[in-house]
């Protein structure tokens, strides 16, 4: 049923946001927003500049997804969070390699695989966040979820 919702053009169209983390900044009302679009969603102005987002920010809120929508089964369970970046822009994304995440924790964006469509389907890259504090990496074992592939069982 969901095959007609092909996200290929969507991910391609928003590659500036997903791969380079570009935001839109309105010259009229100074609202900053993601992804970059040519029209400001707050005031409707077309004087919008594309700018680079800072990569660091803090957790505003988060949850753990155990029943994912189609196409995200591979990474389940995963953490979804609202993050306020250093410039005040809010973004939404997954947080990887996090143990005992808390509101206010500092995170940094990294490039990761976001969505995989089966063995022969497309692989989509984009940003995910990782915590900056070392308390998220217990020394006695590797952080969970650092390996995307489990076929190396030797």
């Amino acid at each position, binding site marked *: *049923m969901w095959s007609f919702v092909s996200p290929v053009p969507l991910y391609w169209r928003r590659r500036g946001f997903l791969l380079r983390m570009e935001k839109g900044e309105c010259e009229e009302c100074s609202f900053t927003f993601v992804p970059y679009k040519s029209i400001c969603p707050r005031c409707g102005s077309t004087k919008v500049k594309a700018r680079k987002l800072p990569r660091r920010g803090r957790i505003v809120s988060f*949850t*753990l997804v155990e029943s994912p929508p*189609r*196409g995200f089964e591979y990474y389940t369970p995963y953490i979804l969070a*609202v993050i306020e970046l250093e410039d005040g822009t809010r973004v*939404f994304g*997954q947080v990887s390699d996090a143990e005992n995440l808390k509101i206010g924790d500092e995170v940094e964006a990294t490039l990761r695989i976001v969505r995989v469509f089966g063995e022969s389907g497309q692989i989509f890259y984009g940003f995910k966040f990782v915590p900056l504090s070392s308390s998220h990496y217990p020394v006695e074992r590797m952080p969970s979820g650092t390996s995307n592939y489990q076929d190396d069982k030797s």
Partner: protein
Amino acid sequence: MKAMIKGVGLTKIDQHWSKSIGELAAEACFKALKDAGNPKIDAIVVGNMMSGLLNGQENLGAHVAESIGMSGIPAVKVEAACGSGGAAVMWGAIGVISGVFRNVLVVGVEKMTDATNTEDQSSALATASDAETELSMGATFAALNAIIMRRYMYEHGLSEEDFSYLPILMHKNAIDVEHAQLRYKISLKDYLESPYVCEPLRLLDASPTGDGAAAVVIGEEGEVEIAGFGSSTDLVETFSRDLTELRAVRSAVREAMKMASIELNDLDIIQIHDAFSVIGYLCVEAIGVAERGKAHKFFESGDAERNGALPINPEGGLKARGHPVGATGVYQVAEIALQLMERAGSSQVEGARTGLSVNIGGTGSNVTAIVLRR
């Protein structure tokens, strides 16, 4: 011209495996038409969110007209995510108030069980969020509401127990309501032992999925007046907004009360949109019934009970009456109309003359508020 409610029809919210979306809508339509004395209908407005995704049927206006033998008259679907039903009532009322139509049939319908697995249901519901920034990251609707709930708990220092008052009251209210989906009591222990859907959001915070249809006939004469309405939108992306304030509810309610020339303390009943406990709380705070962060105190006090100072959802609300998404807003209006006509049976609120219904789409991005008055 005034818009009056001439008749209402409700189906029981359930898993209606044997009925198609058109047959389900027809059941509510025929009840409402009979209740209104079978007037000649000039137009049909259908409130629905997911007929294309879950039933493979768009062009729903024509489909519903055909399902009740009324092909020929104008009929369209109005979509505003979970707020579709309320929006349909508003646009139906506008048709009568403007003088273009004499009688409009408004029907809200959602047939969710044609998708037989939760993945398809939750993927369809998730389309109420922003496709490019939220869906593309793996968001579900429950996840977005869980994020709102965690922030709300953090900002106001609330415990999980604080969210139990709303679902417990809703289940208690629904027990004797014939068209309700979940007619059983729950306890605090049940609430705290129910599993997480998305931490900290529990199963008993969430409204159920089900099939349902509700209809109202709006015309120039009738017992109950659609005295005011207001509709407001907000950014679709949850993350771009203040997570713990429903701005669109605030402005839609203000517009509706202004049009009806009433104040908050004129209201005898409120129907809130408790799709999840936290949204119910944010809803009463945005209406102005409780201060920010204090909604749990309002529900704890007993004021929200059927015989309380300001009854909320006397039929059990989305949590227990049920939430057939695009039909919900029409259920809310129909229930208030029955209350004001003193036809609500065992859920009757004595002497109710004015009611407010708030129907929310998305996590607060498309809201319709409607004031009814006898």
